[in-house]
């Protein structure tokens, strides 16, 4: 936030500051109004619950991506990583059923292995970028292909399905509610709060911002750049594994088509939220709104038949660009200069 304020100069400070922070929220509110006008059922309790639950996957992953991008990195592997972790989780739980039955133990084993895999996969991305001195784009492009083909291989080209003995125990993680909100939404909320605290209230968060602003200066400031950057990928991996833990009970399956394009949706959510793609400035709150905006667009398009199905991608693209332009455009300060 301080970075944004200093960037925008003294004169237009108040004006630009407001637009920057409020941009994604305004965009989301506008979308909701459009959705309601198209069909009042958009604001029904059921649809809002669906919307929030759906946002949880991309949202949780995008919170991890906020750290990676703030520290000047990028992670293209998250979608494939989610698919691979989901696949391995299903395999592990299916074999655990034989020894432990379909109870809580099996689900805990599955969730535990998911977290270990996520941390490990993130660490690999981090180490290859920092110690291996390979650009993050290339490292994660590589691991993206590796994880995607691994899940295809594990599934023998088909679909991995969770044993029906475990489904009964595991299903509530996605479908049940706690004090009126679906459990995935709670997970999303907790991850959001922790992410916000970590980025805005800890030394680690400040180091991420510093590295993203200027890595060379961060090195001279005695920041352990490699370690911090690796940690951002580990956080990303952890977020992917959490998202996977709530994704698997939804349909109980994983295949090569699981998590396709999630990496781009996560990056889009982060950027719509106001984080700068080249690093140095990150906003967890914005990321959450970004994830909600992306899910809402898809939801609204399903609620209307005014727009041809073939143009769904066009609508999504336009809204993403407009949402970012609302915050970045020079129109705010230009008008001020004239007066």
């Amino acid at each position: 936030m301080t970075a944004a304020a200093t960037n925008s100069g003294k004169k237009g400070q108040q004006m630009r500051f407001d637009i920057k922070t409020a941009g994604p929220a305004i965009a989301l509110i506008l979308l909701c109004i459009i959705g309601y006008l198209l069909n009042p059922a958009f604001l029904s309790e059921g649809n809002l619950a669906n919307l929030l639950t759906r946002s949880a996957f991309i949202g949780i992953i995008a919170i991890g991506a906020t750290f990676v991008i703030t520290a000047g990195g990028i992670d293209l592997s998250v979608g494939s990583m989610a698919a691979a972790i989901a696949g391995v989780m299903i395999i592990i739980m299916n074999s655990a059923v034989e020894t432990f039955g379909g109870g809580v133990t099996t689900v805990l084993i599955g969730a535990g292995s998911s977290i270990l895999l996520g941390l490990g996969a993130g660490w690999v991305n981090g180490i290859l970028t920092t110690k291996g001195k390979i650009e993050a784009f290339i490292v994660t492009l590589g691991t993206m292909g590796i994880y995607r083909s691994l899940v295809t291989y594990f599934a023998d080209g088909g679909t991995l399905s969770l044993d029906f003995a475990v489904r009964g125990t595991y299903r509530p993680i996605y479908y049940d509610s706690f004090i009126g909100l679906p459990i995935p939404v709670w997970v999303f909320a907790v991850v959001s709060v922790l992410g916000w605290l970590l980025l805005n209230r800890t030394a680690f968060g400040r180091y991420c911002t510093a590295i993203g602003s200027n890595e060379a200066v961060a090195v001279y400031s005695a920041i352990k750049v490699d370690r911090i950057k690796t940690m951002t990928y580990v956080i990303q991996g952890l977020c992917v594994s959490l998202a996977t833990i709530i994704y698997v009970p939804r349909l109980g399956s994983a295949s090569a088509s699981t998590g396709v394009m999630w990496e781009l949706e996560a990056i889009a959510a982060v950027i719509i939220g106001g984080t700068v793609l080249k690093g140095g400035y990150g906003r967890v709150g914005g990321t959450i709104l970004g994830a909600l905006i992306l899910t809402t667009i898809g939801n609204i398009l399903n609620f209307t038949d005014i727009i041809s199905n073939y143009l769904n991608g066009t609508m999504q693209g336009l809204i993403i660009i407009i949402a970012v332009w609302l915050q970045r455009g020079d129109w705010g300060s230009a008008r001020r200069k004239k007066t």
Partner: protein
Amino acid sequence: MKPIMTLGAIALTGALAFSGATAQERSIKIGVSYPTPTHAWAAGMNWHAEQAEIRLEALYPDVDLILINSPDPSAQASALEDLVSIHQIDALVVLPFESEPLTDPVLNVKKSGALITVVDRGLSLPGIEDIYVAGNNPELGRVSAVYMKTRLKEGDNIVVLRGIPTLIDNERYDAFMAEIEGSGINVLDQKHANWNRDDGFEVMQDFLSRFPDIDAVWAQDDDIAIGVVAALKQAGRDGNGMFVVGGAGMKETIKSIMDGDELIPVDVLYPPSMIATAMDVTVAAFKSNGPVAGRYILGATLITPENAEAFYFPDSPF
């Protein structure tokens, strides 16, 4: 032209088979080329191709089937060149990755004198293939609509989930709509669910929020149908005679039809085993005493509890 060629091939291989039989060699070499499986239907196809290879080679000691799968169109083009130059194939069974980039490579194989069987996806130029084996996309849509009409009455509402926007999807959808027309059944809306479980789930959730009265769902595909069923169960709207019609012939779906599932009571076949049919027909070109060149369009059979057993392959990945 074609019969002469086939006859020539039969005469040639007859001679080869004779010499081969004495030397215990597999002299009829048939290349089978298809895309590397990246989704369940293609994995099922791969499995059926491997099964057909084992079965046909056991049946005919002189037949050698060479299976090659390729990850992209240019790799498939190279694979076709290798089949000619290294294996000197007598026939090619090919499921082209894409029509355009593979038309020339297949034409080159034909110029080497091999018999050409094209599966599922046609080439850009007519007349290259001697044998064509494919499923029937318009018929899949029509058969689904005919079933809908037997279960629904005038004024009932359905929603349609479509695949990935492609020619295949359009053919299925247009034929479905043409058959539904005039029946009085309302198609409330149609959205693309990309032959994908997750998209099927989300699109169906939104349909359920948007339309309070839905009597049936045409999901077009078994993967979409799985997502649709999860959404119906979540919303508690899986009762009251609600039913979902998918398509393709996934083993889990067929199993549940055999078990008398009421939510997915039938399925419409678009068989991954069509590659095996193509291999059978191609081998028959060398073995049969009747002519086999021509177009084989497989039926989009309605799979019901009565006939489901015939389409159930528990060992296949699909």
